């Protein structure tokens, strides 16, 4: 019998054998074998394996060897005549460079350690055996001389070694692997200590093994982030995590991005998750300053068990951002950059000159007593008449939109010795917009250092500073581009820019004037640090102090010259503004981790935390600048001060929390968390809230009955219940405050005050209770892994800006009222579809899907809807409540139309209640702007040196109220119009009403602006080529790759606006969405 053992387990078997045979080794045993048995083999035609086989038959000894380590196909080329087994083995060992050991009746063959072949270039890659993803930063040591390197960004490595030597490959969280060098390219499969679930994830105030997590946590790694040329860390999450909805807040360079986890709990629009950066809660929402390339991982905490540790701030989920740190070993230098060209995704279909001319004629004809068309010369100016005659038309979109570009350069250096590790990076990002003079530039640097003072003390810092400047184009640019008469011209015959493209239009301005004449400049400086000290009180107990100052200085200036839409030839205006925010967090953390006996494992965390944030702001606005070239830089010369102001806000939060994780037999897990928060924002008696949670998990796959299953490699059930809160309000909201007023008596100013808000001293936390049940699974050694989660969250005591009848003298009041419910299901699947160790081709798919149902369950406790706020029990928070257009009043309906006060050619709305009248009671719920489901799909392919990744995302089944549609479909013939099919006596359509020069906007026009904006978008395609190591070695580099990528290349949608994704919030189309094609370079030294 022959046992051929894969090299993975070889060492183990060998050691076992040695143990059994009392350490009988080497030459001694060889000599002992030499006696007795005589061997005759004609072996020169045999392979080594065949030779061994013959020897086994002849001697009864069994050969043990690794076919991987030893090339047993090689011909021996030897003959043995009347030789002892010892002589034969000795000759074979010399020729084929192996040593052998005789253990009882077994002969263990091992590739010769001493006899190393000629050193030459060996390349390889390190891959996770379960997920088949490349492993970056794995340590690779050569056994013979202990020299080491690390795998690069593509998981690749190269070194000089000879055959017969051995590589020792290690990486945190994986079993160390030794691999014999027997070919020029090696694929090293590293196995996680258990499985993929042994990855460490960051949880609030600590880390946990993924397999031990009881709550709902999604981890997005540096690998995911680097595939997207993102400006903003949130962009990298889009389409990557189930239940995390990421949507743009604007498209101009440097614009903010919105993120929502598991739907909207709070009726107040303020639903962003808490962002915790290296352990410190960041200043609300501002994460544009964080350079995505510095991020090691983003953990999204979704359920109450995971988030409860953040108590009062966690009801909308928590994002934990962890930045990259240094590691002991060789210093790594990495340069990463891309350059891309941007352009609009889409242009609006506006009327051209002829179509617009006809619209204006129709709009005038409508009001003619005889229904006659007017003469062109009566309704067009000289420029328009010339355009009509020449069939000339200006598409103002073409006038202002061009190509923009983005570039990013990142240089990172990391490394360290035994005691001190560091990671440094510096970054430069610049985006030039698709409209002139719109741009965003950001420079930043990061210093992360860890230092071990001795066995007990450890300290370190994560810090970054960034500076950005943003130039935001005036919204008038975009409005004018859409609304200017296409019969107008941007330049006169001498080529001079015309301020007014038409002589009969007094409001619209050539947008090129708005571009050159307006300035909105915004500087931001951010300095952030998270400083920690750690002291090991005992092996089980440690104390951790975290101090996190976070400062943000934003200042800016605005300027509108005389010749702009804002000033229409009047005096120029300018202003300066400044906002400084300083926040400090101090946290005392105790961690306890101890096993009791074999079966009990307790980990406990206790935290005391204090945070306060102070905001100071001020502004000055002036007019009548004596010279425009100053823009906003010499306001003292202005003729008038038109506004000044300043503000101060402070809040503080004091918290105590605790968490206990208890594990029994490592497979029954319990987590109990509690947090008490005291906030300054609430009135005395309502300041404190307590937010408990508990979670249970059962690792079924660790039970004996599943342990040996070939099919199921991971199976975990978990469930949690807990409550979290929402401060959700600005400081001083419990007070009824006064608003400033302006008045005068004669020439004596009389500033005064009016009641501005109603006081509400009973304001308290908004609380969300959430139950979460999930199953984590992995099949076929985790080749297919996934999670299915179901959750239901109920939010009560909503902090609500409730509109009230204005007969009170107020528009709204902040109250704790009502309840909402979110119910959802989330599915994530990750599958290695193809992984060929034969040719290295790999295909991996990640899918996530989330469906969330949101509804209001109670409002005032009386079961009644609040129509005035468009809040309806049983319906989502954000519904559109309006009339429904069912057509256009046609000529044969003239009598009915007239009786109800409508004109033929006007919009016909549904008589919802069939009472024969058309009034406010006919409004109905038309839909909601929350998508019914969202999903993401990522496919990655790699082959040889090529990688391809394609990310898709989708939001489905929701409405928007499109402001630009309403704004650009006025059908009055004054402004250019969307190219719509409108009603005329000759064209009795039901699409759009009859143009009328007397209307400023279409009566009931909002009914035309509700649009379904479902879309599927190819978010990103990136194609990467890794240069062969043999080449780059000559350049003293350890890795070099080039990529080309496409951002937003395709979108599938029925929506006819600029971009269904951007307009999801119903905003007016200002800066349009862009797509980008880019090339990138990554080099490591």
């Amino acid at each position: 019998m022959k046992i051929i053992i894969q090299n993975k387990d070889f060492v183990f078997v060998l050691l076992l054998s040695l143990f059994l045979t009392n350490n009988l080794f080497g030459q001694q045993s060889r000599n002992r074998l030499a006696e007795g048995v005589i061997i005759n083999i004609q072996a020169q035609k045999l392979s080594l394996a065949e030779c061994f086989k013959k020897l086994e038959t002849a001697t009864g000894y069994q050969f043990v060897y690794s076919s991987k380590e030893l090339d047993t196909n090689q011909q021996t080329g030897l003959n043995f005549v009347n030789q002892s087994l010892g002589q034969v083995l000795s000759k074979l060992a010399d020729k084929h460079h192996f040593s052998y050991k005789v253990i009882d009746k077994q002969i263990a063959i091992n590739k010769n350690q001493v006899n190393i072949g000629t050193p030459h270039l060996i390349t390889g890659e390190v891959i996770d055996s379960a997920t088949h993803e490349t492993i970056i930063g794995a340590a690779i040591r050569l056994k013979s001389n202990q020299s080491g390197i690390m795998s690069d960004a593509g998981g690749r490595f190269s070194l000089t070694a000879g055959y017969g030597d051995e590589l020792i490959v290690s990486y945190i969280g994986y079993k160390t692997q030794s691999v014999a060098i027997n070919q020029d390219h090696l694929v090293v499969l590293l196995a996680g200590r258990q499985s993929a679930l042994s990855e460490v994830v960051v949880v609030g105030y600590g880390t946990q093994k993924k397999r031990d997590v009881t709550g709902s946590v999604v981890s997005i790694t540096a690998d995911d982030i680097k595939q997207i040329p993102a400006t903003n860390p949130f962009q990298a999450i889009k389409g990557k995590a189930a239940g995390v909805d990421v949507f743009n807040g604007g498209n101009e360079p440097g614009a903010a991005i919105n993120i929502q986890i598991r739907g909207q709990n709070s009726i107040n629009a303020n639903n962003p998750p808490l962002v915790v950066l290296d352990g410190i809660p960041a200043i609300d929402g501002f994460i544009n300053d964080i350079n995505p390339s510095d991020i090691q991982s983003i953990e999204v905490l979704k359920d109450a068990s995971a988030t409860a540790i953040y108590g009062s701030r966690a009801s909308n989920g928590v994002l934990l951002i962890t930045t990259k740190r240094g590691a002991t070993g060789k210093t790594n230098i990495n340069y990463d950059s891309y350059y891309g060209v941007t352009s609009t995704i889409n242009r609006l279909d506006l009327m051209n000159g002829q179509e617009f001319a006809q619209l204006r004629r129709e709009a005038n004809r409508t009001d003619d007593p005889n229904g006659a068309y007017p003469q062109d010369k009566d309704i067009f100016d000289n420029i328009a008449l010339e355009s009509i005659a020449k069939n000339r038309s200006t598409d103002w979109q073409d006038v202002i939109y061009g190509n923009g570009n983005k570039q990013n350069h990142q240089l990172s250096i990391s490394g360290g010795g035994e005691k001190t590790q560091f990671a440094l990076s510096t970054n430069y990002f610049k985006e030039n917009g698709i409209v002139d003079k719109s741009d965003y530039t950001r420079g930043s640097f990061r210093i992360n250092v860890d230092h071990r003072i001795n066995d007990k003390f450890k300290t370190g810092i994560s810090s970054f500073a960034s500076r950005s400047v943003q130039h935001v184009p005036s919204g008038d640019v975009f409005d004018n581009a859409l609304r200017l008469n296409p019969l107008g011209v941007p330049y006169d015959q001498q080529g001079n820019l015309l301020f007014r493209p038409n002589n009969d239009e007094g409001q619209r301005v050539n947008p090129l004037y708005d571009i050159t004449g307006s300035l909105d400049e915004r500087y931001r400086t951010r300095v952030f640090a998270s400083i920690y000290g750690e002291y090991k009180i005992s092996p089980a107990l440690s104390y951790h102090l975290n101090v996190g100052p976070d400062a943000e200085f934003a200042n800016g200036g605005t300027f509108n010259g005389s010749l702009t839409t804002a000033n229409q030839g009047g005096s120029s205006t300018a202003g300066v503004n400044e906002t400084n925010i300083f926040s400090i967090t101090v946290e005392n953390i105790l961690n306890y981790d101890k096993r009791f006996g074999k079966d009990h494992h307790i980990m406990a965390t206790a935290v005391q935390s204090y945070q306060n944030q102070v905001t100071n702001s001020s502004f000055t606005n002036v007019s009548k600048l004596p010279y425009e070239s100053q823009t906003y830089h010499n306001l003292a010369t202005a003729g008038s001060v038109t506004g000044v102001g300043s503000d101060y806000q402070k809040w503080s939060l004091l918290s105590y929390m605790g968490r206990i994780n208890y594990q029994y037999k490592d497979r029954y897990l319990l987590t109990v968390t509690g947090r008490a928060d005291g906030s300054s924002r609430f009135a005395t008696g309502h300041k404190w809230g307590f937010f408990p949670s508990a979670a249970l998990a059962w690792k079924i796959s660790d039970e004996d009955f599943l342990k040996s299953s070939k099919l199921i490699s991971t199976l975990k059930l978990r469930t949690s219940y807990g409550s979290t809160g929402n401060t959700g309000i600005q400081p001083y909201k419990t007070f009824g405050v006064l608003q400033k007023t302006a008045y005068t008596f004669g020439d004596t100013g009389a500033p005064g005050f009016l009641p501005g808000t109603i006081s509400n001293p009973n304001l308290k936390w908004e609380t969300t209770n959430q139950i979460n049940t999930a199953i984590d699974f992995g099949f076929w050694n985790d080749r297919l892994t996934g999670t299915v989660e179901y959750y239901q969250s109920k939010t009560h005591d909503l902090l609500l800006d409730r509109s009230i009848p204005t007969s009170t003298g107020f528009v709204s009041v902040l109250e704790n009222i009502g309840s909402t419910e979110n119910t959802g299901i989330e599915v994530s699947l990750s599958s290695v579809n193809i992984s060929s160790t034969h040719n290295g081709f790999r295909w991996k798919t990640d899918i996530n899907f989330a469906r969330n149902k949101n509804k209001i369950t109670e409002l005032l406790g009386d079961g009644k809807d609040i129509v005035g706020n468009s809040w309806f029990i049983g319906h989502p928070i954000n519904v559109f409540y309006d009339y429904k257009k069912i057509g256009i009043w046609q000529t044969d309906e003239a009598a009915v139309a007239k009786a109800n006060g409508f004109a033929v050619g006007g919009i016909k709305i549904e008589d919802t209640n069939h009472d024969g009248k058309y009034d406010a009671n006919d409004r109905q719920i038309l839909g909601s702007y929350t998508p019914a489901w969202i999903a993401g799909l990522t496919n990655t392919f790699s082959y040889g040196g090529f990688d391809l990744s394609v990310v898709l995302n989708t939001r489905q089944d929701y409405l928007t109220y499109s402001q630009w549609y309403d704004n650009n479909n006025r059908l009055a013939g004054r402004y250019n119009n969307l190219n719509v099919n409108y009603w005329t006596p000759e064209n009795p359509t039901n699409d759009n009403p009859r143009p009328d020069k007397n209307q400023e906007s279409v009566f009931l026009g909002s009914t035309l602006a509700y649009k379904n904006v479902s879309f599927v978008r190819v978010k990103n395609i990136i194609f990467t080529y890794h240069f062969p190591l043999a080449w780059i070695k000559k350049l003293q580099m350890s890795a070099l790759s080039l990529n080309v990528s496409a951002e937003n290349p395709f979108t599938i949608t029925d929506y006819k606006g600029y971009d269904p994704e951007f307009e999801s919030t119903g905003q007016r189309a200002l800066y349009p969405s862009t797509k980008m094609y880019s090339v990138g370079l990554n080099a490591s030294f």
Partner: protein
Amino acid sequence: MKIIKKLFITLCVGGITFGSSCKLEEIPVSQATPETLFTTPSGLRDGVYGVYSKLRALYGSQVGFTLTTMGTDIFQHGKDGGYKFLDAYDSQTNSSVGYFAQLWYDCYQGINAANTILAYADKADIPDNLKTQYKAETRFLRAHFYYWLTVQFGDVVLATTETKGVNTTAVRTSKEEVWKLMREDTQFAVDNLGWTADAYGKVTKGAALQQLAIIMLMQKDYQKAADAAKTIIESGPYKLLDSYADIFRYDNQQNAEIIFAAQYTKDLLQNGDGNQGHAFFTPAYDQFPGLQRDLNQGGRPYTRFRPTEFFRNLFNPNDSRFEATFRYVWIYNNPATLPKGKAIGDTVEWQISPGVTSKIAPNTDNMHWAIKKHDDPTRASVQDLAGFRDFFIYRLSETYLTAAEALLLAGKPAEGVVYLNKVRTRAAKPGKTMPMLSAGDLTIDQILDERARELGGEEKRWMDLARTGKLVERVKKYNPNSAAIKDMYLVRPIPQSQIDLSTIKFPQNPGY
């Protein structure tokens, strides 16, 4: 034990780094509250000023102009604007119209501010006479807001106390009830204020008497209304200027005829949105060859309101008010687009119909006549909307017409017509005379015609017509856009938000 000791030391160190105490007390440093401000002498004063400031929401604002000018017998809509439909009196005039909600809110904000001041007035440590003065000013203003509300909307919510907490169960009180409060408030002001105040622009006995007279007219207490008006004429410090045009001279805003005016100033920080009246009547003259926007020719053309033919024809040739009211000629001022054969400074020649030209501007939607009363040529640029002109709320000539109206309705036309004729006499061009009315001529229509000539374009008309019940009849007759007006339009619809947000049934006005 050693571990506990270590833990103790650690926590002590942690406590020290924790540093300053973590107080959760909240002090609204940047914010003023009624409790802190209105209990001080200067704070209470500033609160009264806050109530005054709401006058600007009514006078000089687009909301105020639109809801008093559009769809009357003397003005129809102009070329532009989002509220042109208001003179069609059709289904577009409904409870969702933004300006109705805006006016409703502005008035109630003023009323709540007044109620708050009245609640705090006794808490501040100030002399009694000052206390009484503040109360009188505040009560006058409260009644003034209610005047707008009851004339525009009919029965409205009667609030006499400061809003505390949430109230969604307000009900409509009959306008007669509201008038009672208005009368008490205004009477209090009459009784406690002098003919002159410590600063120009404050409420005086004269202003209060004029308001009282109007309230009494609505209450059909005609003799008392006449008495109030006559008290102003006979005992007040006011006199009619010799020239009607002088009233509106920019450099003569504080003149002997002004009883009460909403105040505007050149101090931009105290001018708010300014008096924007200069823009709304101005036609789009700048869109015609040879013309560009000009501070002295109407300024920025909002082209919202166009005088009706009826209004233009309402003037006797000897009536100086025609010239003082209308701008109907323009002067070439744009060399770039100057028509051939014309020079800068020439009077513009308009093409009225093919082959026919005129130096008098046409009065169509596209180019119409303007009103000169709100001209504000001192603004820095033609585009500046915020004007500086005071807005005249009560003038003595109105008091004469109020007296005439009250006496007519009290059955004393002979006495009444004297007051009306005084106004007509003053209106005559220098060296000319105006025909006088006899007692037999005096009708409510004659009074409304005279009010049109005297007060046209001064935010009075729609409310005068509604107050006298003549809206439907006269608008149907004289406004070509308003043929469809029905009785229901005598009051505006209650804003839909008030109805939707009430937790009890809040009735809509009939027909809406």
